């Protein structure tokens, strides 16, 4: 039973709407959603505000979801109307304009606001934060009429604001309370280098200064410092930090520390109220970066969708400054303590500085200045917590162990293909290479549009630029590879990897996120994506019938004249007089023009009209033989030791057992099996995807054979003694094929591509085999007979019938 619950989101920002987007993918109809936003805009990408200031984008360009998106997803959106209170007893939220909206679940995602320190005069005109579109608009407007700007705060946000104001043509001074810039992320040497570079761009700095007053009458005219000095300014941007927006939580009785206190599942202390993003405090930490918000949002969405989740365990964060022309990276703990050891490298000539902080043989922090190309690989080392003992110096210098120095380009080259370059959008090195080489993205703009790399926080831009150089420079020598189809230049493995890492759950979503060229794909990619999704998520994925080829939609083989053929399941090819009579009766009743044995020892009724299919299935009352699908077809058998004088094992029983076990199993391509009862191999088991040949006291498993388009003899995978072992190896092999082959790739082609040794190696460990067995069994547990389903459901059955339109001369016909 499904009832639609009411979900209210308070806050129309990145964290909240990201959560909703995820939830819609996981459980599209579970909630009736209402969103309240204090700002008058739809959801936009706050991170890109500095790009707007820099003139690289307009405000419209940074809208993530426009009004159509809300409408299409049946979300009620109230903009410019902040929520003032949650009434947990009545289960209602109450907005400033007086709206009362019922809820079953409520999410608080009110984010944070710029912290305006209580300096006298901070309420004057011309004093702003750097937080939302309005601040941005104020800066742009002020730059038209005024010249002197001061930014209070030399952290990430302050420097971005300052850079934007420089771009707007203002004279900018950054005032910072500490002795060096970005002291939360950088140590002294890196901070000084940063300052030097920014000064070269025209930024001015006053360090170690504390502001005591903002002067002026109505509008600000300057700043005064504790040391008595002063500075003229027509615009003051406060960028000393952010404070969680907790007004709603405070008035609603929620537990608050610095932010709204949440547990690993984003619960607050009051049932049915969750909090996510910058307004939340998890394990004592409030995050102000995008990656943790996305991680929290994904956990919350899963919980609200009713799915299991391990919960959120906190994030290790990294920072990259995205100020033009300066490459800065910082991650983890960069400050020295008595427990840590650090390695530093400083090159004042090329302005390069690196510092690695190590504790107990593990990398716990890093600062890079001037060359940040190793940032993401160092960041993954920090996150993984693996030991770096013995290669510390190599990591610092970027030199391969004892070898000669490598250039930054060579280092990019040696980076693993699957390494994520853009953490915000999960873009791998391979995806970037592909965009450059296959889709002709030769500018940062087109690369961004195509892959989304560096499109969110932009911190990875230097790395992406480096890769662009690497690939564009070499493109002449690189052979052009083809994508899965004309709709994408991504290949199978890249697509499957992206589906896994990004948790994509529908064909449409895959196409949207991976930037398909055709919005609805084509007859090649749609069935492939449908298969991959079903293979990856057998429990959750709802098969898309419209993405299947005709045969699989109508569960019979389409023939050249538009008629169909029907093959009932006959396990192991062993039938009975009663079943034969049933088939014969149906064939006579429906005037079946041709009855034939198939290549796999089954009976085929050919020449059937589409509208007769459901009736024929109903009267046959036998399971579908799946003769039409990318599924297990038949298990061909010989007589075996039941009657044959040479037979060493019961081939028929084994064949029936296997056909029953793998019946309805989907695959990248059709799958044919055979069982021969002795080495004479009468069932021709060595030209099958999986063939068993009985030997005295055991079974040989032959794999990768094909008797079709390209004849290929199977190769021996293993020899085993018992039936249990046969099933274990067969299941593991079939599942391994399901998980690794390209769509439409038969086992013969697949094994030729990857090599039998690879498959043997993959299946050698019993633990791995048992895991594969359990996955194939899970998949099989969700299958059902399609014929029965269609017979039972009118809405499926209608598609087999033509429409009955009114007669041409009837009353509904009008001539005019």
């Amino acid at each position, binding site marked *: 039973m499904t009832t639609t619950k009411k979900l209210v989101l308070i806050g129309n920002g990145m964290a909240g709407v990201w959560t909703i987007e995820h939830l819609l993918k996981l459980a599209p109809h579970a909630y009736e959603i209402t969103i309240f936003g204090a700002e008058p805009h739809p959801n936009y990408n706050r991170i890109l505000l500095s790009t707007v200031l820099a003139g690289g984008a307009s405000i419209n360009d940074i809208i993530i979801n426009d009004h159509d998106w809300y409408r299409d997803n049946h979300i009620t959106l109230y903009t410019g109307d902040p929520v003032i209170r949650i009434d947990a007893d009545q289960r209602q939220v109450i907005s400033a304009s007086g709206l009362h909206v019922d809820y079953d679940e409520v999410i608080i995602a009110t984010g944070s606001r710029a912290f305006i320190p209580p300096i006298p005069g901070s309420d004057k005109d011309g004093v702003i934060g750097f937080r939302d579109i309005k601040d941005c608009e104020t800066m742009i407007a002020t730059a038209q009429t005024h010249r002197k700007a001061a930014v209070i705060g030399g952290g990430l946000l302050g420097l971005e604001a300052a850079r934007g104001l420089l771009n707007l043509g203002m004279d900018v001074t950054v005032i910072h309370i500490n002795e060096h810039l970005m002291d939360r992320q950088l140590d002294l040497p890196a901070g000084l280098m940063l300052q030097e570079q920014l000064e070269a761009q025209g930024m001015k700095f006053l360090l170690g200064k504390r502001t005591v007053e903002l002067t002026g009458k109505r509008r600000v005219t300057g700043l005064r410092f504790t040391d008595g000095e002063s500075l003229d300014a027509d615009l003051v941007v406060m960028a000393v930090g952010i404070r969680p927006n907790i007004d709603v939580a405070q008035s609603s009785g929620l537990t608050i520390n610095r932010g709204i206190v949440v547990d690993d599942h984003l619960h607050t202390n009051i049932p049915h109220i969750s909090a996510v993003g910058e307004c939340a405090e998890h394990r004592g930490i409030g995050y102000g970066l995008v990656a943790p918000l996305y991680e929290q949002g994904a956990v919350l969405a899963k919980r609200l969708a009713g799915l299991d989740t391990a919960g959120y365990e906190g994030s290790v964060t990294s920072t990259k400054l995205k100020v033009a022309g300066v490459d800065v990276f910082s991650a983890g703990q960069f400050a020295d303590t008595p427990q840590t050891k650090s390695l530093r490298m400083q090159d004042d000539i090329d302005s390069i500085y690196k510092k690695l902080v190590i504790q107990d043989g593990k990398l716990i922090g890093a600062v890079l200045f001037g060359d940040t190309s190793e940032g993401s690989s160092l960041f993954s080392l920090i996150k993984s917590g693996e030991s770096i003992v013995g290669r510390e110096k190599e990591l610092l210098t970027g030199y391969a162990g004892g070898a000669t120095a490598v250039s930054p380009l060579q280092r990019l080259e040696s980076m693993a293909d699957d390494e994520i370059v853009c953490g915000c959008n999960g873009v791998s090195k391979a995806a970037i290479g592909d965009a450059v080489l296959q889709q002709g993205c030769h500018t940062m703009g087109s690369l961004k549009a195509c892959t989304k790399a560096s499109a969110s926080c932009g911190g990875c831009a230097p790395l992406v630029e480096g890769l662009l150089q690497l690939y564009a420079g070499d493109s002449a020598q690189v052979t052009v590879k083809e994508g899965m189809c004309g709709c994408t230049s991504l290949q199978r493995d890249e697509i499957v990897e992206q589906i896994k890492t990004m948790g994509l759950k529908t064909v449409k979503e895959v196409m949207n996120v991976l930037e398909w060229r*055709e*919005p*609805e*794909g*084509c*007859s090649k990619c*749609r069935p492939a994506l449908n298969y991959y999704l079903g293979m990856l998520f057998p429990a959750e994925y709802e098969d898309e019938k*419209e*993405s*299947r*080829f*005709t045969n699989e*939609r*109508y569960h019979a083989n*389409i023939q*050249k004249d*538009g008629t169909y053929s029907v093959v009932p399941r006959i396990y192991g090819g062993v039938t009975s007089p009663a079943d034969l009579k049933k088939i014969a009766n149906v064939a006579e009743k429906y005037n079946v023009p041709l009855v034939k044995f198939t290549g796999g020892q089954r009976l085929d009724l050919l020449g059937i009209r*589409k509208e007769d299919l459901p009736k024929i299935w109903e009267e046959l009352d036998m399971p579908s033989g799946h003769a039409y699908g990318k599924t297990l077809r038949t298990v061909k058998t010989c007589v075996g030791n039941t009657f044959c004088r040479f037979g060493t094992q019961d081939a028929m029983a084994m064949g029936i057992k296997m056909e029953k076990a793998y019946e309805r199993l989907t695959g990248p391509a059709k799958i044919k099996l055979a069982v021969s009862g002795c080495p004479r191999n009468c069932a021709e088991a060595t030209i099958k995807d999986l063939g068993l040949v009985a030997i005295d006291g055991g079974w040989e498993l032959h794999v990768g054979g094909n008797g079709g388009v390209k004849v290929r003899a199977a190769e021996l995978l293993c020899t085993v003694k018992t039936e249990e072992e046969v099933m274990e190896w067969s299941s593991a092999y079939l599942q391994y094929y399901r998980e690794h082959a390209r769509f439409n790739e038969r086992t013969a082609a697949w094994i030729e591509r990857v090599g039998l040794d690879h498959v043997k190696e993959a299946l050698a460990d019993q633990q791995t085999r048992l895991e594969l067995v359990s996955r194939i069994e899970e998949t099989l547990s969700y299958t059902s007979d399609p014929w029965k389903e269609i017979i039972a459901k009118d809405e499926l059955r*209608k*598609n087999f*019938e*033509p*429409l*009955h*339109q*009114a007669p*041409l001369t009837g009353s*509904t*016909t*009008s*001539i*005019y």
Partner: protein
Amino acid sequence: MTKLHVGHIQDIDKKGSRTFLLGETEIALFHLSDGSIHAVENSCPHKKGRLSEGMVCGTAIHCPLHDWKIDLRSGKVQDPDEGCVHTYNTEVDPASGAIYITF
């Protein structure tokens, strides 16, 4: 002009099709993702494949026999193949969902 009531929009699944006979001619009606209804003669110019059995992708239909791709709005066969199928004008009554073809 003749206007013929041939069915209701809810009779056809999205990205699905239904057929009906107009005299001797079989016509396939397609219900696209954008909600629009398109009608074409149900016969591929290549080997007379029944287009109603094919896969709907965007505004195109892929013939089930040899994967020819045909634009349902214009009836034009897409490169690298050539040809055209006859298309019919359709109207959907927004209130009742009744589908009409006009010819």
